[in-house]
């Protein structure tokens, strides 16, 4: 997609239309006064061909947000408000379907065909007693009844080739595949009906770094080829900085900052994002002492008043414990560029240096394609 490889802010260029718009989404677990507010007033926009990363710690509501917007929540999860507008047709950008109001039959049509999900645990996502072929063709049989058996089998083989697995694995069972291959099969299944949106919920968390790198490369290549949009959920912000075009950071059920990956990396505006960035040791340069973030993630059953981050925040002011900051553009943002929910960014002149860094340092550079090349010194050894 064109959005990549250009300066960070241009991922919101006029040409890229939104394909999914979440606004004001609220999800509770339980009902009434004792309900836990797992997602509060979440806004998220996914453009065509864009990779949006959703970062957050365990319990921040990132998976609940994804399952809420696709209405896959299980009881006691309840959607208590908001809209999820899906714009299926790029030629008719005004036409939209609200996924939260669609009938069950319509949702059945949309799920998998337009919005597919890759779940975290590939072993639990695949049926252990069915072959890979049976699971791939089952999806096709359910959603494309007009396809012949032979055509379904051909399509299944094609899908496996798409994710770099030889079609002779069709006869195999999930336990015969390595963890990385299982996750590739899950991705192939998600792509079976050529969806416009693929939601990936921690797809590489259980994998080794080398396998993780291969899968991420594959996701990027497939996105470039097929043009779908990705909502990538992970707790690993360092991964998203490389992969995503736009990143939304969640804390205690709210999106606290969203910005282009380069902007977020070079110039975080929320103290939590800044703290997260200081939680990953670098692979380069001198070793500097890092602090992480003091304290523990909040208990959602008893969230702190005001800004949920204030008990761990080094910049907390009296206002922070009383009022929830709105998600709004920081004072120096270009229009529609980035959003942050922090009282320090309400236009006051004395912002901390750490939260007012210039963005220009963070030009996004496309990651060079990973190829087999000789490391220079190792080559010299030959």
């Amino acid at each position, binding site marked *: 997609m064109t959005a990549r490889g250009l300066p960070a802010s241009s991922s919101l260029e006029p040409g890229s239309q939104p394909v999914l718009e979440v606004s004001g989404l609220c999800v509770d677990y339980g009902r009434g006064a004792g309900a836990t507010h797992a997602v509060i007033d979440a806004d998220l926009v996914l453009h065509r061909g864009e990779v949006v990363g959703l970062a957050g710690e365990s319990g921040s509501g990132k998976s609940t947000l994804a399952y809420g917007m696709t209405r896959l929540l299980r009881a006691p999860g309840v959607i208590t408000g908001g809209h999820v507008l899906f714009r299926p047709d790029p030629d008719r950008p005004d036409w939209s379907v609200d996924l939260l109001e669609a009938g069950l039959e319509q949702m059945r049509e949309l799920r998998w065909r337009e919005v597919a999900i890759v779940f975290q645990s590939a072993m639990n996502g695949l049926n252990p007693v069915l072959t890979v072929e049976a699971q791939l063709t089952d999806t096709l049989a359910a959603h494309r009844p007009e396809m012949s058996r032979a055509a379904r089998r051909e399509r299944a083989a094609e899908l496996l080739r798409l994710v770099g697995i030889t079609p002779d694995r069709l006869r195999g069972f999930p336990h015969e595949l390595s963890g990385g291959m299982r996750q590739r099969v899950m991705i192939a299944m998600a792509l079976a009906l050529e969806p416009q949106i693929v939601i990936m919920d921690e797809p590489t968390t259980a994998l080794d770094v080398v396998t993780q790198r291969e899968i991420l490369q594959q996701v990027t290549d497939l996105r470039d080829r097929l043009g779908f949009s990705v909502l990538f959920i992970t707790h690993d912000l360092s991964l998203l900085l490389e992969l995503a075009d736009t990143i939304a950071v969640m804390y205690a059920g709210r999106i606290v900052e969203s910005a282009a990956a380069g902007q977020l990396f070079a110039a975080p505006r929320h103290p939590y994002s800044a703290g997260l960035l200081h939680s990953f040791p670098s692979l380069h340069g001198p070793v500097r002492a*890092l602090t992480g973030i*003091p304290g523990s993630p909040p208990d959602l059953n008893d969230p702190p008043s005001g800004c949920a981050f204030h008990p761990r925040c080094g910049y907390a002011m009296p206002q922070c414990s009383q009022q929830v900051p709105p998600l709004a553009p920081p004072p120096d943002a270009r229009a529609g560029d980035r959003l942050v929910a922090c009282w320090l960014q309400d236009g006051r002149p004395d912002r901390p240096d750490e939260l007012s860094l210039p963005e220009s340092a963070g030009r996004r550079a496309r*990651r060079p394609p990973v190829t087999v090349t000789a490391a220079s010194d190792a080559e010299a050894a030959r």
Partner: protein
Amino acid sequence: MTASGPGPAAPATVDTGHAAEPAILVARDLTKHFTVRHHGQPGTRVRRRIVHAAEDINLELRAGKVTALVGESGSGKSTVARLLARLIRPTSGQIILEGKPAGRRQLHEYRHKVQVVFQDPFASLNPIHNVRYHLTRPVKVHRRAHGKAAVQDLVDHLLTRVKLEPPSRFLEKLPHELSGGQRQRVAIARALAAGPSVLLADEPVSMLDVSIRLGVLNLLGELRDTEHMALLYVTHDIASARYFADTVTVMYAGRVVESGTSLAVTEHPSHPYTQLLLAAAPDPDRALLTMATPAVVTTTGAMPSLITPPSGCRFHPRCPFAMPVCTTQLPPQFDVGENHTAACWLRQPGRGTA
């Protein structure tokens, strides 16, 4: 959890201090083979197969130093940690504690000196016992204090040392009432209760939320500095090893492929596998700041079977530089720098490399 304390090792101390500190715990050619029985059709012979989990491991843990053991899952890094904890018995090789071979008899004494922090603080603490119980048990078992008041003082002191303050707030808590980071701190305090000189930490932060990982790592770093403890840090995250450890040992398929000071290994990786591991690690600096991307070694494929490991160098089926010698002969550890060795034929002296 503050960032007080010296934090990660300054590079200067890494280089000079290496040989000066005495090695407290030494592994000599440590090998562990697991036997698996394969039951085929009823009536057929039971086949025994050997998993070569760890072979010829040489490690030295020095006082006041952190040694990181880095590798992917299945590389044998946890097997080495369990061998050093003497939770499993080596097939061959020796463990030497403070200059004396660790005999089979003195296990209690050994545990007094060598303690373990496990990966999962949700599993390693007993859910029906409170923090007080978890800490008083080892104090009594290892006879660190006598009399109620003395035991209580020591337990309070332990909690203070892992920054669970004030201790009275935590003593009566059950594990489920604590957050993941607090639980891991209790597990560290429990290990310290025996008064060990060596701490074996097997992936101590990988189950914790990212924002609190560094707090726990910095705490372990402080123990290294203030208690002059020797630490083994087993991890799959080479970036955290670079941050936290003084020396790094990289394992692949049950063998050590490279070891050296953490900066030498991460900045001048000599073994193609280490290069692959570094290239694959998430690295925002490289992606976002148009840093000069190091030439990337990548291969497809995964860790080989440890039941039938490849001949010669175990990395050769995936190695882009594999030569005929790699498929037949196991490479020994070649010196590639000061206190920096790599088991790779490319590094053989006379091949024109430094």
